[in-house]
């Protein structure tokens, strides 16, 4: 008790002494207090039967009923499975392609070619996912899409992409890789450029071929970066890519079985169905599970590579 009182007195004294510093920090503190910390108690909405006029804390408490319903209908399982599988594929395939491209780019001698191709591959990073959605429309739309234009030009039947859930798995993954390769490629390229030049030179003197050099030097050196990015990616494996999914799929419910993820489900329960409690239950489950995953992943990282752990 005495220590707490003393602690309070210490803060008060520090506040007076450094009042300008505190004032400078204040806007950011207010931001986090309002937009992050004030929101957290609101997660309670997942445990009530939310009524707009009664507010979060005025609505009736129903415990885990919302969660029970989600489990019973099987929806929770389906969106969790989709989210996990998509993110695993994004992570694994994405990283492998990024590494391959980084190595290929580092092997290329032509300076201009290198510079231009690097810029071009990075370009998709700069546009919004809304534009990616436009690209998809431009390519796959039934009446005027480019692919159907080509197909009917070749005498084939038009293909209704927007009513075939199966094919969107591949389209979504393809667009994700398309958009993310440039970014990851540069991260890996930075790691390759950081490798000591003398090492390569020595390998040449010993008569190593390019392939041997890639196989026995570059890849092992990239391995820790790869594992780290993979591990950190695991922490966010229940989150993300709402932008991509919503802009490609939108409100096309035919495609949901294969393309619905947690974020799109929560969004729909808010905007389409006004089912605040159900959506909040899923969101809470996602946040909690995400936090646990980060803690576990960080624990593993600390075991494997103590220097790279987050905390």
């Amino acid at each position, binding site marked *: 008790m005495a220590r707490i009182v003393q602690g309070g007195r210490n803060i008060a004294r520090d506040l007076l002494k450094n009042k300008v510093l505190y004032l400078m920090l204040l806007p950011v503190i207010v931001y986090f207090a309002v937009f992050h910390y004030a929101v957290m108690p609101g997660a309670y909405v997942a445990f009530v039967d939310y009524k707009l006029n009664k507010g979060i804390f005025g609505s009736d408490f129903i415990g885990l009923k919302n969660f029970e319903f989600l489990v019973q209908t099987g929806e929770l399982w389906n969106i969790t499975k989709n989210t996990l599988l998509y993110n695993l594929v994004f992570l694994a395939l994405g990283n492998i392609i990024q590494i391959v491209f980084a190595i290929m780019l580092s092997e290329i001698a032509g300076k201009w070619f290198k510079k231009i191709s690097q810029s071009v591959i990075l370009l998709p990073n700069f546009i919004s996912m*809304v534009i990616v959605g436009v690209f998809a429309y*431009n390519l796959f739309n039934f009446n005027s899409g480019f692919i159907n234009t080509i197909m009917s030009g070749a005498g084939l039947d038009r293909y209704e992409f927007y009513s075939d859930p199966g094919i969107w798995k591949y389209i979504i993954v393809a667009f994700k890789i398309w958009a993310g390769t440039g970014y990851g490629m540069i991260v890996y390229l930075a790691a390759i450029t950081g490798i000591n030049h003398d090492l390569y030179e020595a390998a040449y003197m010993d008569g190593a071929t390019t392939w041997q050099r890639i196989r026995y030097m570059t890849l092992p050196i990239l391995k820790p970066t790869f594992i780290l990015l993979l591990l950190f990616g695991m922490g966010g494996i229940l989150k993300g890519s709402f932008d991509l999914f919503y802009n490609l799929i939108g409100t096309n419910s035919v495609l949901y079985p294969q393309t619905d993820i947690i974020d799109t489900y929560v969004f729909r329960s808010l905007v389409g169905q006004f089912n605040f409690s159900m959506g909040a239950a899923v969101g809470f489950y996602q946040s909690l599970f995400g936090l646990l995953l980060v803690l576990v992943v960080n624990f593993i990282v600390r075991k494997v590579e103590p220097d790279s752990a987050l905390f």
Partner: protein
Amino acid sequence: MASTSTKIKQDSGSIFIKLISYICITIFALFCLFPFALMISSSFMNEQEIVREGYKLIPNEFSFKAYEVLLGSSTKLLDAYQVTIFITVVGTVLGLFMMSMAGFVLNRKDFKYRNFFSFLIYFTTLFSGGLIPTYILMVKHLHLKDSLFAMILPAVVGAWSIFLMRNFMKAIPDSLYESATIDGAGDFHIYWRIFMPLAVPSLATIGLFSALGFWNEWYNGMLYMDTPAKYPLQYFLQRMVAQTNMGSLINSGAVINTADLPTQSIKMATAVMATGPIILLYPFVQRYFVTGLTIGAVKG
């Protein structure tokens, strides 16, 4: 590596790897460019041709009709431009000011509770209240529904950007502000007159990330904006493509028959207009972006 490999006589394997690299990278780069090229050429297509034959890479004839309609003030595109420019400028300037001050304070070794406040900021990247509580807060308690600030405030500050800012400032020696303090300068004075000029490269990097984020903003626009004249550019584009409510995107007073709209080419023209400024800035922006990425990559 490139220079060493040319010095030494190359084995056939290395020539093969180089060749494969050139081919793969060229193909992937073409894939990256293709959708842009298709979008641009589609935007210049004649409406009848699109309806008859579909979007093409090389149209039979070029038409500027879609751009005429878009820019002829008969749609709300110009409003959307204004909204996006407003949120980008205000959001970036406000965010940079807030984040640089926070970075400055959190880097000060004489600031006793810097670790405590750093953790408060960091924790928000681990756990969040979720979309629905956020929505309730924004609409019911902050009354930000249909306010442009609903698109600015939630995105004005980023936890990682603050830490990036703090790490950039580590490079500036402590002795600099020690001597400034001795000369009688206050904390804010030191921040504004000494730190800010030295921090220009980091301000540019983070400012670019932040500006890009605001330029591409559509999500909060979709959640909170009710008035079509307040839609940001990207959300305007999305509505245009989804064609849920084309009428609301057209000025009511304009003398235009909705049936006459080149609906197919106008979608692509809007997309071109929403991408345009970024493509023009790209060569300039890219350099900073790569630097920022590389610095970010050091810690993972």
